[in-house]
Structure formats: structure tokens, C-alpha cells
């Protein structure tokens, strides 16, 4: 039983399989340090356990009173010195190697972290940002960052609210997303070595929904990546706006409770929901029918008001709910007729 636990623990102490060129170096360094640490651990714990059994008190004789020994003390000052110097050299060499920058990254992405979602802005050669590929998403529909395999990827990590951190465990790296004002943002460069889907999430505590600030990375060959970019490139459709004279329903939330649990909207025409969030807790309004999402409003922390624009719906019964707090107090019926 005990060896089994020890074996499981030892396996767990090895990081996830690395999937970038840089991560492979970190993986190697980590394992070297782990082995050194393991040796120290076994030696010292072994000594403690041995002493406990070997030198337990057997009689009243006073053991020899040894106060110290300069030579021995000198030697065991040297041992950790040598270990940490080796470790420092190895880690600095690795650090320089993984911090190296390429002159022409294959793709550059402005990554914006915000409470509590991510926006990935793929920068392209033309100066016009309106046709750039932007991917965003939050707690319920985490965004996907597509990346080409085998090319250096440069991320510029921006924030306009609090500090977040971009973390992909399979890449063995994280870098803080710091609001820097006018100063340049943090950057992170890596080269993904294997195609695949890797999960990531915010690693710097950033408020209420920190745990929900997830995303995933999809690494693919260059040709697939180009095809993906083409699909994602925005066609020139303006953001939906509410036609004149549409119905606007009002909902407000306080103490994690909606003020109404019954709403009625006209069928087959767009309408608005004016949502007032009266408290400093994130809420939204989302519409579902038989568990299928119809509309998910962006959530935000109050106090504040937003107007959600909902496309025309066929007549029927729908549920409206706060995605953040899907509890009875934040659930209601939307009748469309």
C-alpha cells in the first residue's frame, strides 16, 4: 500500500507532457531539480528515521557532549553551496534560452484579460483593425485561441482593469497580464511543437469569477490555421441595434434575486431587455428553451444598466436565467406571443 502511494505521488510530481519548444527545456530543468530535491529528501528523512531508531534512550548514561566540529561544519556548508550554484547555473542557462526572441514571429496576438473573460486579437499586416480576427468569450463559452504549430507565437498581454495571468499548463508557463497604462505590456513568446487542444486559465486572482476565466488553445498546422483565420475574419455586418419602437422589457437584480420572474415579449420581432444590476456581483440575463441557449447576455458587475438586443423569436415559452447564478431566485419564465 505505502509503496503504491509513494509511486503515485512520484508520478504526480512530474509536470504535464510539455508541448512547446520552451516547455521541453523547462520540463528538463524541472526534472533535474526534482531529482536533486528527491535525493536530499531521502537522505535527510532517512537520517532522521535512522537516528530515531538507532539512538533512542536505553539507559541513564549521558551521551558524549559534542559541541561542534569545524571541519565537519565547513564541509556541510560547502554541500548546499555547491548544489545551489549548480542549480543557479542550470536555471539561468534555461532562462536565457526560453527568453530568446525571434525577429519575425509567425503570429502576433494581443491578448486582453478582463474581469472575467479573454479577448484574442490577431494582429495582421494591414493597419486597419476593423477586419482583424477577434476571438472573445467568458465563463460559459470560453474562447479558443487557434495557433500554428512550429512557428514562434508572440503574445502581447494587456489589461485595462486588474492583474490577470495567462497560464497554459501544457506549455509549463505563465505570464502576468498587468495593466501598465502607457508603458509597454508584458510579452510571452513560444513555439508550439505538437498539434492539439490545451486548456488554459487565469492564474492571478482577479475577483469574483476568477475561477471561470478559462480558455483553450488549439494548435494546428499552418494551412489549417490560415483556413481558420479566413473563416473568422469579420464580414462587414454592423453590431445589432434595436429597431425604433421595439418593445423593451425591464429586469433588475439585487441580492442575487431578479425583481420579476415573469416576462412577456412579442413574437417574431426583435426586442430589448433593459437589465439593471444593482449590486457589485456579476450577473447577466440569458434565454434558454428546453436547455438550449438562445441568447447569453454579457455579464457585468453592478451597479449599472445595459440593454440586451434579442433577435426575433418564435412564439413559445422560454426560460430566462442568470448564467452566473442559475438558482430559482434568478430564474423566470419568458412568454413570447
Amino acid at each position, binding site marked *: 500500500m505505502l509503496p503504491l502511494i509513494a509511486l503515485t505521488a512520484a508520478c504526480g510530481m512530474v509536470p504535464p507532457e510539455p508541448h512547446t519548444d520552451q516547455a521541453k527545456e523547462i520540463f528538463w530543468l524541472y526534472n533535474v531539480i526534482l531529482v536533486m530535491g528527491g535525493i536530499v529528501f531521502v537522505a535527510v528523512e532517512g537520517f532522521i528515521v535512522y537516528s530515531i531508531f538507532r539512538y533512542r534512550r536505553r539507559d541513564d548514561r549521558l551521551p558524549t557532549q*559534542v559541541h561542534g566540529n569545524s571541519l565537519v561544519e565547513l564541509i556541510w556548508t560547502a554541500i548546499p553551496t555547491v548544489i545551489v550554484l549548480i542549480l543557479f547555473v542550470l536555471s539561468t542557462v534555461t532562462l536565457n534560452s526560453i527568453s530568446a526572441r525571434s525577429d519575425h514571429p509567425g503570429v502576433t496576438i494581443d491578448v486582453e484579460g478582463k474581469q472575467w473573460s479573454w479577448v484574442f486579437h490577431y494582429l495582421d499586416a494591414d493597419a486597419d483593425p476593423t477586419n482583424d480576427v477577434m476571438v472573445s468569450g467568458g465563463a460559459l463559452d470560453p474562447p479558443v485561441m487557434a495557433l500554428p504549430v512550429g512557428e514562434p507565437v508572440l503574445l502581447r498581454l494587456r489589461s485595462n482593469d486588474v492583474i490577470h495571468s495567462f497560464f497554459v499548463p501544457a506549455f509549463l508557463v505563465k505570464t502576468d497580464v498587468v495593466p501598465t497604462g502607457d508603458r509597454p505590456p508584458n510579452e510571452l513568446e513560444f513555439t508550439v511543437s505538437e498539434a492539439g487542444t490545451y486548456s488554459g486559465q487565469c492564474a492571478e486572482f482577479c475577483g469574483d469569477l476568477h475561477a471561470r476565466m478559462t480558455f483553450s488553445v488549439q494548435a494546428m498546422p499552418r494551412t489549417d490555421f490560415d483556413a481558420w483565420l479566413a473563416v473568422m475574419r469579420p464580414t462587414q455586418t454592423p453590431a445589432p441595434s434595436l429597431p425604433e419602437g421595439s418593445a423593451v422589457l425591464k429586469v433588475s437584480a439585487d441580492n442575487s434575486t431578479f425583481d420579476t420572474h415573469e416576462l412577456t415579449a412579442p413574437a417574431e420581432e426583435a426586442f430589448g431587455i433593459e437589465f439593471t444590476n444593482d449590486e457589485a456581483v456579476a450577473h447577466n440575463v440569458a434565454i434558454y428553451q428546453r436547455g438550449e441557449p438562445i441568447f447569453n447576455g454579457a455579464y457585468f458587475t453592478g451597479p449599472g444598466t445595459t440593454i440586451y438586443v434579442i433577435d426575433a423569436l418564435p412564439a413559445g415559452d422560454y426560460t430566462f436565467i442568470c448564467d452566473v447564478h442559475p438558482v430559482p431566485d434568478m430564474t423566470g419564465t419568458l412568454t413570447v406571443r
Partner: protein
Amino acid sequence: MATTTLSPTAKGYRRSWVIEWLTTVDHKKIGILYIVNAFLFFFAAGILALVVRSELAIPGLQFLDERTYNQAFTMHGTIMIFLFVVPVLSGFANYIVPLQLGAPDMAFPRINALSFWFLPAGGLLIFSGYLFGGAAAEGWTLYAPLSNGTYATGVGTDLWLIGLLLVGTASILGAVNFIATIFKMRAPGMTLFRMPILVWTVLVTATLILLATPVLAAGMIALFIDRNYGGSFFDPNAGGNPVLWQHLFWFFGHPEVYIVILPAMGVVSEILPVFTRRPLFGYRAFVYATIAIGLLSFSVWAHHMFTTGQVFLPFFSFMTALIAIPTGVKMFNWLATLWRGSITFATPMLFALGFLSMFLIGGISGVMLSAPPVDFHLQDTYFVVAHLHYVFFGGSVFGVFAATYYWFPKMTGRRLNERLGKVHFWLHFIGFNLAFFPQHILGIQGMPRRVSDYSPDAGWTILNLVSTAGAFMIAVSILPFLVNLVATFINGEQVGDDPWEGNTLEWATSSPPPPYNFDKLPPIRSERPVFDLRHRHDAEHLAADLTVPEGGHS
């Protein structure tokens, strides 16, 4: 020492025990007040830990919403560090240091009382956020700009700042008092290099508090101005820098780690020699190592900030790795003290040995984190949570329990029940490892800290469940401890003045000691005056029998 002209056993005028305890300036009573107060906060913060672990046992939010969860882990960390570990060690130091120096009291008894009474006041202010719209919820590190007025709107964060300023003021006053006491109140013959190791560690700790705490206080005042009076120290959009807060916080925060661990190392260095019946191996080297750790602690703060992109990594990595050297020296000194000893396993010794083996793990994981590339992966994951608990809990808190079992007979004249003590130790030791070892693995596999929830697909469920079970086991282990305290206090075994055959001066007076501590002092010729007194015939024999004395110590 003018006080020696007063008879040490002189009775004051009589007053009710409530008034006596509320107005006392006796370092022993204040020490006990510190310890009792700290344990009350320990239980409160422990309950918060159980709340946190219950929520994390399985994926999904079962008990709390996110905000309540965030308040729980913020308060847990704040209270444990600032109102339990630091004050409880101050409490033991308050009780023991004057006794070990052969002094009648601390240098400034009234300031001593003042610095204690700030603590419950500050602690209650920090907690009172719960009554005024919610406690602080930004983590015990209170990182800007999450903690500024835009994102942390509640008054709980202001109460946290004010409360902690009071606690910090108490620490600074206490530190001045300890330094003055150690330099000015030593008994005749008690030279610096005959001081017990605990006194040395308290001296270095007090110096760290004196130099580091004002920096945090300045940072907290700046943050308070940002929040309430339109300041922009940490606001990037108005020329401030949020990472500046991290520099200020950790310039205090890393010395704080040693403020918490050094006195616990001192406790262990008192207990090991008594229960191995040998002197601490390499006393001077141990003192120099303690001073070296203190000095280095001011040059490593930014290793908490390797991923911020605003730190010169090689410098802080190098300085951090250097700390492993004096720490390693201490570990070897402890091991050599065990070697060829005559070891008995009373409960204080069990906790001291627990300290050695658990602090070792915290030390090794600390060295791993000192390599920036490795830190890039592990920073802000559960690996760091595991690391800090192996240092704070496996290290300091094991030291606190060792101290409690060791000095309880000095404080009361009664020894805590050994059988209950051993039950406490083993439940505690196993529960601790169940709770925190799996967190290393969770962190390495990529689970971030401070999350209220995690995906059921992440593969983290079983380890989280084990960790929660371990946390509850620690809570259960506290029950025999409490029963033991109460039962022993009422009707425990009376064991006289020196039940452990101690080495240092506190064992040369009665248990509990009289108001001004000593009627007479034994001659002080080494760091173990009471040992010398007990074995003076052996020593004479040795001197006569041996042509070559062992070691080089006089």
C-alpha cells in the same frame, strides 16, 4: 536591575483576577494572553480553512457563492499569518525570553501590554468587515488594482487595512521591546554567545520586524489614500504602478516568512538538545546562520514576482538560492544533534521531529521555486499553496505545538497528558500530509490557487477530496489537544519545576515562576546553565578523566 531589591515573591495588593489580567504588565501573564488570544484566532481561521476545503472537495459550487468563498480564503490567510502564527510565537517569546535571560521582566512592561492589546482590537476590526457588507476578498496579499476603490468597493477592505495597521504597530512596539530586553536585561554572566538559541532567533526576528513592517505600513497607508482620498500610487491610468504594491508588500512579506519561521526554529533548537541530552551541535554556526538568513531575507522579495515581467530575474533567483545555504547548515546542525544522542519521545520532541521532516519538504519545494523557469509553471498554482503550508504549518505551527507541550509545565506546574498528546501528534501529522502533499501534485498538474471551483474534467477531483479529508483530520486532531488543555489545567499531573531536565534558565525557577521570576540564579558559564548545574559533578569527572576535551567549546 532595580527590581531585584524587591522580594521576587512579594505580594501586591489584592484585586479581582479579571482586573488583574486586564491591567497586567507582567511579561508572563501578557505572554499567556498573547497565546490564548492567538489560539482563539487560530480556531476561527481554521474554521474558515474547513469552509474553503469543503467547497473544493468536489467540482461545482455546493455551499458558497464566489464572493463568500473569496472572503473565506482571504480571511483565513490574513488571520492565520497576522493574528495566529506571528502573535503566538511572540507570546511564547514574551513568556520565555526574559526567563531565559535571567531577567525580571521585559524592558518596557507597559509598552508590552499595549502591543498585546492592539492585537485583539486589530483582529476584530479585520473580521468586522463581515458586519459591514462583507470582509476583504482580495487574498491576503491584497494586490492592487484589485484592491483599489474601483474593484473592491466594500468597506471591508478599509477595515482590513486599518486593522492590520494596528497589528503592525503592535509588532513594531513588541520588536523594540525585545531588542531592548535582549541587549539590556541579561543577567550577569549571560554574554551574547551564551544566550539560548531561542533568544537569538527572537533577536533576529525582532530586527526583521523593525525594518520590514514600516514598509508594509507605508504601502497600506498609500493604498488607503488610493481607495479613499483620490490617490493614484497604484493606478496605472494615472501614472501609478500596481506592481509597486507587490514590491512594498513582499519587501515586508518575505522577511515575514522568516519572522514566522525563525522563532519556531529557535523552539526546536531548545527542544532537541533536551530530549537528546546533547548540546546543540555547532551553536555558533547556528547563530551565524540565523543572522545570515535575516540579512538575505531583505534581498529576495521579488521571487514572489517572477511572472510580473518587472523583475531582474537572475539577481533574485541567485539571492533566493543562497538562503538554502544557512538553512541547510541549520538542518545539518539539528541532524548532528540527534546523532549518537540519547533520544526520548515526549510530545514536544515528536512535534520538533515533525518540524524537521515537514520543514525539509517546504525547504526543498522553495528551492525548486527559486529557479525562474520552474516558477513560471508553478507560480500561483496549488504547488505554492502546498509549499507555504509546509513552511508555515509543517514548520511554524508544528513549532508552536512543540512549544505548547514543552512550556505548559513551566506556565502551570502541570504536564499535559502524554497519551492525548501522542494521539494529537499522529492525527495532526497524518492529517497535515494528507491535506497538503496532494496540493503539490495539483499545482504541478496546473490547478491555480484561489479558485472557487474547477472543472470535473480536469482530473483534480480525487486529490482535492483527499486534501479536504486531511483538513478535517487536522480539525479532529485539535479535539484531544483541547481536552488535554482543559483536563490538565484542572487536574493534571503536578511535575515540579523542571520536568524535562531542561538546559536553560527558565527551568531554574519555580513553575509557574513568581512575579519577578528568580530568587537566585545559578552561575552562567555556557548556553546551558541549568544543565551545568545538574551535571557539575559529571563535568568535574570529565575534566579529571579526559586529557583531550571533546569539541572546542568552553
